[in-house]
């Protein structure tokens, strides 16, 4: 990382594979003053609980926190759409001085009467933590008075990072788990944890499991339903995707109900197939195993020929991956390999030591590994490493474009499903579309002098 000036405080968060033994700093708050891409506890819990579509989600605080999270996730529901509304107590100055408890109580009474939701999640934001409203007591009172279980989510933003929000969400979910009737659940059954049904991805995964002959008791939280979550402790196995968001809930269920955990990733051919086989193996049922073999064989043989034409164009192109969690980055690197591409930068906002260690194991020599990067740093590495593609989230897209390189959203703003075998095909298409877009040729003219570059082009055009 010679030509890049890196802030002292950031050095520990950057690792170059092969240069020195692996040792990266992570799971820390960003240095004050950095242009961090990170969010807060509230953001973490909100994104995890958001897809529970028949619950009421009420944000207790000033208007902003609610406004910015209003229907930005694209976590599809096959039924109710209540989760897509934005409810806020919209605290005003006088509430901040005298407390917002009355207002919250009143709001919940009005809402529950109107919508009769299956349950209600009440998110406390920074200011509520500071003024000390007793949200818990109000939730208890509302639950008792209305019969609708009202669950506080302790998500004051300043109490940590997005990851701590996952934990707050798991605690909230834990209040529901175990409260429903488990009669009639098949021994060949699982819960899908940690998928958020962005662009319908949960449906794809659920369909695979059902084709294998496995009953899916609850999808937590993509296309989630309160009643399913109540009885999900009746499942034989928890299949957890994503390193951060749902592991804690699965662990709680393991301790309390003895339900084992399998980790899975649904991105890319290898990881997707492995996820299905792992489940089949665990359930140890001949029919399920046979179904799984058939399914994987069918899907892969359909998929591989379709990937060929993309691979031809993408071979040797260089990618940078910057995701929310680090677990996903691993699948990305593998998927990019499937397309013949090389990952030259890999990073995440919330990875832990273990994630990063695996990331570096998987990476080629010279790959830059980044924790909690900032735009300046990211842009410099993108240039230095001559990336052709950046995979990231909403704030990274314009940075990639400004540099004149392709971009693929692998965060919550993607509009096409990237999970599963058909997701891999979508991914290939999207990467191909952006990496080979003619616009980057036009953009590249700017790197030199546009006018002399274009006159050269025209001359070449004349000759041919």
């Amino acid at each position, binding site marked *: 990382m010679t030509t890049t000036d890196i802030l002292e405080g950031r050095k520990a968060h950057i690792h170059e594979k092969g240069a020195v033994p692996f040792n990266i700093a992570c799971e820390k708050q960003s240095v004050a*003053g950095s242009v961090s891409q990170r969010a807060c506890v509230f953001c973490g819990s909100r994104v995890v609980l958001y897809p529970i579509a028949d619950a009421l989600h009420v944000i207790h605080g000033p208007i902003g926190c609610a406004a910015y999270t209003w229907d930005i996730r694209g976590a599809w529901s096959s039924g109710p759409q209540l989760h897509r509304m934005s409810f806020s107590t919209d605290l005003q100055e006088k509430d901040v001085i005298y407390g917002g408890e009355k207002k919250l109580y009143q709001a919940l009474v009005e809402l529950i009467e109107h919508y009769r939701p299956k349950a209600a999640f009440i998110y406390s934001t920074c200011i509520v933590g500071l003024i000390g409203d007793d949200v818990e007591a109000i939730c208890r009172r509302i639950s008792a008075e209305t019969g609708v279980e009202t669950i506080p989510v302790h998500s004051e933003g300043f109490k940590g990072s997005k990851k701590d929000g996952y934990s707050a969400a798991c605690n909230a979910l834990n209040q529901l788990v175990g409260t429903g009737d488990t009669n009639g659940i098949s021994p060949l059954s699982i819960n899908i944890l940690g998928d958020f049904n962005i662009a319908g991805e949960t449906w794809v995964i659920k369909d695979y499991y059902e084709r294998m002959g496995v009953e899916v008791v609850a999808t937590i939280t993509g296309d989630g339903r309160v009643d399913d979550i109540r009885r999900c402790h009746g499942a034989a196995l928890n299949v957890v995707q994503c390193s951060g968001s749902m592991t804690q809930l699965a662990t709680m269920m393991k301790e309390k109900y003895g339900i084992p955990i399998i980790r899975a990733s649904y991105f890319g051919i290898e990881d997707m197939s492995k996820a299905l086989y792992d489940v089949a193996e665990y359930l140890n049922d001949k029919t399920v195993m046979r179904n799984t073999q058939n399914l994987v064989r069918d899907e892969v043989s359909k998929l591989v020929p379709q990937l060929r034409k993309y691979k031809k164009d993408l071979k040797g192109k260089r990618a940078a991956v910057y995701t929310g969690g680090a677990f996903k980055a691993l699948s990305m690197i593998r998927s990019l390999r499937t397309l013949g591409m090389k990952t030259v930068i890999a990073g995440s906002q919330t990875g832990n030591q273990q994630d990063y260690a695996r990331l570096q194991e998987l990476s080629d020599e010279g790959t830059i590994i980044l924790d909690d990067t900032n735009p300046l740093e990211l842009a410099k590495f993108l240039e230095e490493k001559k990336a052709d593609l950046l995979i990231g989230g909403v704030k990274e897209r314009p*940075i990639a474009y400004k540099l004149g390189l392709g971009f693929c959203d692998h965060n919550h703003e993607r509009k096409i499903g990237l999970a599963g075998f058909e997701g891999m095909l979508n991914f290939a298409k999207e990467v191909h579309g952006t990496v080979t877009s003619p616009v980057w040729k036009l953009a590249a003219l700017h790197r030199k002098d546009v006018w002399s570059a274009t006159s050269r082009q025209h001359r070449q055009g004349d000759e041919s």
Partner: protein
Amino acid sequence: MALLRHTTDDVVERQALTVNPAKTCQPIGAMYAALGINRCLPHSHGSQGCCSYHRSTLSRHYKEPAMAATSSFTEGSSVFGGQANLLQALNTIFSVYDPDVVAVHTTCLSETIGDDIPQIADAAVAKGFVPEGKCVIHCNTPSYVGSHTTGFANMTKAMVDYFSTSTSEDKIADQINIIPGWVEPADMGEIKRLVKMMSLKGITFPDTSGVLDAPLTAEYNMYPKGGATIEQLEATGDSAGTIALGPICSGPAAEALQNKCQVPQNTLPLPIGLRATDMFIQTLRKYNGGNVPAEITAERGRLVDLVSDMSQYFYGKTVALWGDPDQLVSLTQFLVDLDMRPKYIITGTPGKAFLRRIGEVLGDGVKDVIVKQGAQADMLYIHQLIKRERVDLLIGNTYGKYISRDEDIPLIRHGFPILDRIGHQYFPTAGYRGAMRLCEKILDAFLDRQDRDAPEESFELTM
């Protein structure tokens, strides 16, 4: 769609609840305004989350990187105050990102803790964290007061408080300050073009043109070329006058400049639509000796010509509008001039002055208009009104798309934020040319609709 089944036509009185807000919080406005200073890095003094949301929302709307740093509050900061964080932040910012200005705004959290930003900034200077010739400005933006427009106004006023200086009693006759208000970068560009055509030297602040509509150069530039420079901001104190476009977003800065440097101020509506643009040009005439170049008169003439061609289609059409007060006042005026009928006008931004100004614009001629502002003036409310009595057209930000779909009413995206369309940052709606574009969009919406709904026998080539 089931999403909207949740809206019924019985308007329930709500006291404690905002549903689907028609506003957001102060810091995002401060952040947007600060990006209109050349080589400025906005800084959010609070937890990481707010800053991250504000940047994402600006990025989604402008399709540009929106840079800002954060104090990254932890639990400790919320107990002991954020002084240590801000000191460290300023040190980091100047050594890593090298801006000329850091524009600090507070969030709910730091505001409630009561951090004293100027005092901390002074301490940072004393510690040598702020290099020579660089500066830190600030404004307070508690989110539980006002809305995003208030934050915009506060940061714009901070530019005056920190920079404006008058170097002599005599003002520079042909130099005027333009405070454009919260509009798109392209609108700021259009406003500047008009000022230039009027042969005046304008200082526009904040000026996000060139910053949030920067060209693609295949290089990443943290500070694009645009924005008001420190020298320009300082020079505002010597201008002959200030034109504040929109009283909510631009009024406070203009007033401060008048008090601080005796620069006389003119507060006008945002120059959106014909009459508001007329007022703008008329005011510019005060400073250029009364001349209006023929080209501007011709632009106006073209607009009137266009409106005359379109007038048969506009007559009597009803409209529901929501958004920021400054925007709504000018838009309403324009719609009335187009012979349309604004029917529901909603803003989440509190402030009674808005009701009076809308009342003036509507006059006695337009009857039965429902105007509402404040916490319960939200998208749920406007939807309920529409369910009771339909309108022909919706004009407002992206959040109206649910109503548009559910009620099958065309929506013209206007205002902030627009999250689902691209191009708005490049095409102005301000000035006469902007008004022409607005007209075109409105008419297209009506005629597309007519084509789509026409039965085979009345589907016609000419319309």
